[in-house]
């Protein structure tokens, strides 16, 4: 058994100014295994990976690599690659303007000249061997994200790697694509590659991994065989407490057909990004959800409701009165709030302070020529920093120095401050640790009780099952079904999506 170990990290410690990021962490990777590294945000997963790939230098500890007996020091990602440690990141770090073959070989040829024919032939062989559906001469931009990710993996494999680190490779892929990546991972495993797999999705861990190492607050919690560790236990180890919270949440069954008053109604609404007209209705205090695979058009639908894309047709009524919503400001004036899917692009303004980010939407509604006084703004910000328990040094801290979960809370605060009647939350929990996820879910239900209508979108179907009383199921940019109350189960959702194919 010991002979199978290809990588062992012992007593690794790493400190940053003010934070002990890693404290005596052990990690062992064996030949031909998929080893999941789990932990909440800030648990030290990325730090551990960065130590291993030479981005950071470790303060203490020892790394041994099979074949290279002695205590090795890795100084740069290049050096790590030469030792056989390759990394595939969440964001695809390839060049979209080059061909697939080039992307596999660029940056590591020794020769000054490029041997196109040889490169195309070799990469073609590797792609075929691994069953990756891409052609060597194809421009990378014309491949789907999943295929691009697979090309990145193929590149890593070809560099003769013994240790493959996959840092959240699946976070922007839909289920079918994730399955493709998993097939590839299992294939590599059979070839004896040790894979370190980092992900936020618990289900994925149980689908592919053999072992799980859990970190918490920079310390090792333990290493387990996957089959010996039930999901609930894993979650408990990750957040360090029993998760009673999760079961406490009960959704309230309100729906427009059992007595609610209509808060928002759209008939045959369509926009540039959402070309198929859809009709939609939500009542006061209802939590509904749009579900479907990634790319099924769920975000495009809610963006049309908010007027975020150019609205091309449809009638809209808010609180029973006809309204004209053609741009986000119209929607805001009608009491609609929208927490966007892509926090980094559409949500945060990272150089502005927490306070400025919070009052932004309210300020827009009031108009920029009537600014809130400093005292008013501070009062607003402090209220919500407290209410949502936003962890920030002060209200003046630039938003970019907050963690992802806290940034999300700031955006949420921004919309809550406008006191919306209808709040749309598009992936509010993406990339956020479990503790904060539960807080946000609870908040959603609390708001609904106070009479706010909420549309909730999430890639994690369990989350929607817990919070939504009505699910609208989408497929290929069409609404294919609607589930209510007790009909809402994972099976039903899957079946509705599958049936929608006919």
């Amino acid at each position, binding site marked *: 058994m010991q002979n199978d170990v290809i990588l062992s990290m012992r007593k690794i410690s790493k400190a940053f100014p003010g934070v002990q990021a890693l404290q005596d962490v052990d990690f062992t990777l064996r030949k031909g295994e998929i080893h999941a590294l789990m932990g909440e945000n800030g648990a030290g997963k990325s730090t551990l990976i960065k130590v291993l790939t030479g981005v950071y230098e470790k303060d203490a500890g020892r790394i041994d690599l099979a074949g290279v007996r002695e205590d090795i020091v890795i100084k740069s990602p290049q050096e790590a690659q030469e030792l056989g440690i390759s990394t595939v990141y969440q964001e695809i*770090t390839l060049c979209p303007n080059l061909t697939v073959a080039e992307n596999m070989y660029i940056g590591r040829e020794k020769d000054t000249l490029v041997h196109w024919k040889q490169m195309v032939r070799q990469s073609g062989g590797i792609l075929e061997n691994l069953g990756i559906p891409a052609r060597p001469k194809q421009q990378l931009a014309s491949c789907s994200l999943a295929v691009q990710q697979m090309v990145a993996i193929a590149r890593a494999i070809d560099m003769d790697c013994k240790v493959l680190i996959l840092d959240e490779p699946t976070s922007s892929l839909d289920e079918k694509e994730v399955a493709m990546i998993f097939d590839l991972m299992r294939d590599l495993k059979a070839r004896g590659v040790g894979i370190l797999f980092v992900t936020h999705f618990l289900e994925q861990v149980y689908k592919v991994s053999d072992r799980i190492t859990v970190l918490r607050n920079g310390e090792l919690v333990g290493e387990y065989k996957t089959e010996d560790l039930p999901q609930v236990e894993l979650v408990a180890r990750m957040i360090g407490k029993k998760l009673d919270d999760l079961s406490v949440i009960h959704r309230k069954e309100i729906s427009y057909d059992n007595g609610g008053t209509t808060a928002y109604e759209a008939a045959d609404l369509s926009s540039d990004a959402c070309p198929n007209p859809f009709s939609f209705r939500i009542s006061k205090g209802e939590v509904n959800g749009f579900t479907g695979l990634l790319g099924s058009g769920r975000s495009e639908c809610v963006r049309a409701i908010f007027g975020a894309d150019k609205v091309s047709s449809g009638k809209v009524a808010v609180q029973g009165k006809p309204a004209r919503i053609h741009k986000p400001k119209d929607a805001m004036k009608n009491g609609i709030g929208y927490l966007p899917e892509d926090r980094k692009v559409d949500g945060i303004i990272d150089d502005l302070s927490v306070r400025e980010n919070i009052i932004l939407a309210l300020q827009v509604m009031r108009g920029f020529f009537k600014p809130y006084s400093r005292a008013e703004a501070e009062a607003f910000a402090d209220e919500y920093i407290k209410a949502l328990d936003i962890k920030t040094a002060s209200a003046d801290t630039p938003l970019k120095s907050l963690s992802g979960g806290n940034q999300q809370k700031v955006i949420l605060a921004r919309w809550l401050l406008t006191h919306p009647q209808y709040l749309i939350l598009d992936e509010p929990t993406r990339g956020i640790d479990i503790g904060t996820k539960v807080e946000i879910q609870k908040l959603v239900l609390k708001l609904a009780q106070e009479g706010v209508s909420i549309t909730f979108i999430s890639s994690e179907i369990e989350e929607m099952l817990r919070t939504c009383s009505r699910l609208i199921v989408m497929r290929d940019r069409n609404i294919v079904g609607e589930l209510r109350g007790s009909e809402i189960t994972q099976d039903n959702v899957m079946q509705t999506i599958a049936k929608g194919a006919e």
Partner: protein
Amino acid sequence: MNTNRQIPGALGRRREPLTDTQLLLTITICIFIAMYILAMLVWGGGFLRPQQLFDMFNNNASLIIISCGLTIVMVAGGIDISVGGITALVVMSCVVHLDNFGGSIFTSVLLALGIGLAFGLVQGYLIAYLKIQPFIVTLAGMFFARGMTTVVSVEPHSAKHAGFLALKALRIEIPWLGYTAKNGNIIPGRLEIGVVIALAVVLLVFILLKWTKLGRNLYAVGGNPQSALMLGINVKRSRFYSYLISGLLAGIGGFVFLTHTGAGNATNATGAEMNAIASSIIGGTLLTGGVGNVIGTLFGVLTLTTIKSIVLASGLRDPWWQSITTGAMLCLFILLQSVVLAGRRKGRTRVRTAVPKRFRLQRKT
């Protein structure tokens, strides 16, 4: 995104769709040919003679060379607006060197290369290693070079060096592409020495961009610098080389300019950098980097010149008409490029859903 899920072995012989670079190149070449044929049909006369085409090369040899440099810089995602200034400085320095300091052709070529390299070296270092905005650095370079030109000589200066004048008068004659003059003499097609240098530069730059590691690294850096770094490319060094080569080519371009005009003047090559940028863009190089081709740039220069010739031929002799038409055409080209590229991106994700359901291919079950 589903269109790519095919088994690679099954489509070994299928032609790949064009890459963005190839697509834009094709568009440029087609437009140039169409425009030239149009000119031949409508205005005839000079356009029917091969010499017209040769003169386009003769008059623009230096522009072709400095445009090649700009293409390299733009592919790597940068910009270099100092090339016109460098050209002027080289022209003036060489001519003064030849006449007043008893220089030879050889030393003046060395001087030209040296000035170009010096600019490229300094600008490349500032941009790549000290991370200063390329626009600012090369703007400073442009002012500096223009200023130095007048320091070298305020007065216009015509070359009197005998050897150089012989070089300037040298023509490559192509008898079978000549025409018969009114008095019955056959006048052969004539190409200047600069054209040979320009074509050699185009070829070398083509090889550099297509077949060398540095060339491909430049595309990667222009496409996504962050990724390029992760892929193990030395991004700083690649950027540095792009400016170095651009400076060097501006030096060569300056010498070629001198062999064409034979005189140094502080206003030489005014606006050459803008013409070079325009040519690169017309030739399918994207200002955003990562896409471009030097053959396209060659055709870009020719297209730009053809437009100007057509404006002249159609009787609009005032100089501003050329600028106005060039501006309009450049606008049109960029619009066309972005429409075509946007169409491609859109086609990939939307075409499938845009087809009404009943027209879609039924899957057999």
